[in-house]
């Protein structure tokens, strides 16, 4: 089971560590008081990356080479100049951060950018094939003013295969390390669009997309309008919302590392009412590819709760047994039995943006 996780919050970055006797301890490891939108640990457990969004002074990117004890500011992704300076984009947020499988990093950003760093944040390069897609200017913001890339899935068997999830711009797949992209949102639908654009693949709002490490052709999406799953590398998405319990709305999804049919969700009422159903915080779990869902609630608050889980605030460790979940109202829970029971680790954290086990 994982021994450590990162917890990125509105007011700092925390490390969650398993202590002697199996007890978990939470410690601040940097950026006290500042918004940390994403964090990532290298597979060697040594380097840690943190993306900040300072309210006044912009987005910053830091790297620690000593597990978070000390930090050094690195370069941030930059958008290209445009002839019309007023329209030129600037970096709003680093929304996703992933290893590229070859020692580098992918960063998904708002507005709508995908950047690659071959050197741990010493430099970044905009992925122009995606940025220059004719459909890209038609993407629009979901929750933010501009569209953003919140999910970057790198195929563990072939790092040239990269899948990105865009709110609101659909799902895009590259099979050549980002040299070219194809939209793969077929089967998704958007109730927030006029009828004739309901199934437009380039304006879908997948809130979060995750890929099965065991079978990369299986991907799961918690979409604005429901829950979708694909078994053919996103060529066709299947709507499995009807069996979802207690609702089909939410932001986060986590998939089991070795069982492609097992995934977890953190449901809320619906898009115009983003609070837990009946004031009860629950996690839903399917073990059969979305045919049926169990509602897991042991150890979670069951009355007057307003905790919402953001899209990166639910994670599963590399064994598939431990789950970590953080809420907008600053609660952090862990489960060590696949979600059957949860333990509250802290009820008074800042709003939780992202939780990540070391993997």
């Amino acid at each position, binding site marked *: 089971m994982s021994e450590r996780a990162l917890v990125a919050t509105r007011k700092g970055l925390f490390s969650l560590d398993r202590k002697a006797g199996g007890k978990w301890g939470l410690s601040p490891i940097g950026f006290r008081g500042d918004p940390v939108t994403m964090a990532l640990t290298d597979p060697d457990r040594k380097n840690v990356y943190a993306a900040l969004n*300072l*309210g*006044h*002074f*912009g987005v*910053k990117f830091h790297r620690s080479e000593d597990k978070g004890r000390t930090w050094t*500011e690195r370069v*941030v992704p*930059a*958008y290209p*100049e445009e002839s019309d*300076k*007023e329209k*030129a*984009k*600037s*970096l709003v947020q680093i929304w996703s951060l992933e290893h590229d499988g070859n020692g580098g990093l992918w960063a998904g950003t708002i507005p709508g950018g995908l950047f690659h760093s071959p050197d741990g944040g010493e430099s970044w390069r905009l992925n122009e094939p995606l940025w220059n897609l004719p459909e890209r200017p038609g993407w629009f913001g979901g929750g933010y003013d501009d569209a953003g890339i919140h999910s970057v899935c790198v195929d563990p068997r072939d790092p040239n295969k990269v899948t990105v999830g865009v709110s609101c711009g659909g799902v895009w797949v590259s099979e050549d390390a980002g040299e070219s992209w194809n939209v793969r949102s077929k089967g998704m639908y958007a109730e927030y669009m006029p009828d004739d654009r309901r199934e437009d693949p380039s304006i879908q709002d997948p809130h979060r997309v995750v890929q099965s490490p065991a079978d990369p052709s299986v991907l799961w999406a918690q979409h604005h309008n429901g829950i979708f799953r694909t078994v053919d590398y996103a060529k066709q998405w299947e709507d499995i919302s009807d069996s979802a319990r207690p609702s089909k709305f939410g932001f986060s999804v986590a998939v089991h590392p070795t069982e492609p049919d097992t995934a977890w969700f953190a449901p809320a009422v619906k898009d115009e009412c983003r609070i837990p159903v009946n004031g009860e915080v629950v996690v839903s779990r399917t073990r059969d590819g979305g045919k049926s869902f169990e509602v897991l609630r042991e150890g979670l608050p069951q009355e007057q709760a307003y905790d919402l889980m953001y899209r990166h605030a639910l994670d599963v460790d590399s064994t598939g047994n431990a789950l970590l979940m953080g809420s907008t109202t600053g609660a952090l829970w862990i489960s060590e039995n696949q979600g059957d029971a949860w333990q509250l680790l802290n009820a008074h954290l800042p709003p939780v943006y992202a939780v990540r086990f070391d993997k």
Partner: protein
Amino acid sequence: MATVNFTPQLERFLTAPPATVAGDTVKTVLSEVFADNRKLEGYVLDEQGRLRKHVAVFVDGKMIEDREDLSDPVGEGSEIFVMQALSGG
């Protein structure tokens, strides 16, 4: 020569001492300062050279008007303050 002062809030992140530099617009004055402090530039301006949304610049007590090209004039002996705007929370 103009004097440029930076909000002490920046000291949480980096060193931003007052500077006395030459220049006849906000842009040329700040460019002089940033030439010696590249990191500071990214805290005040975005990658397009525009003033960050929640940063305010005052020249002799007056908030600048041109946030994109920073063309507001700077006089000999002007005093410039780079502040964090309360709009940023």
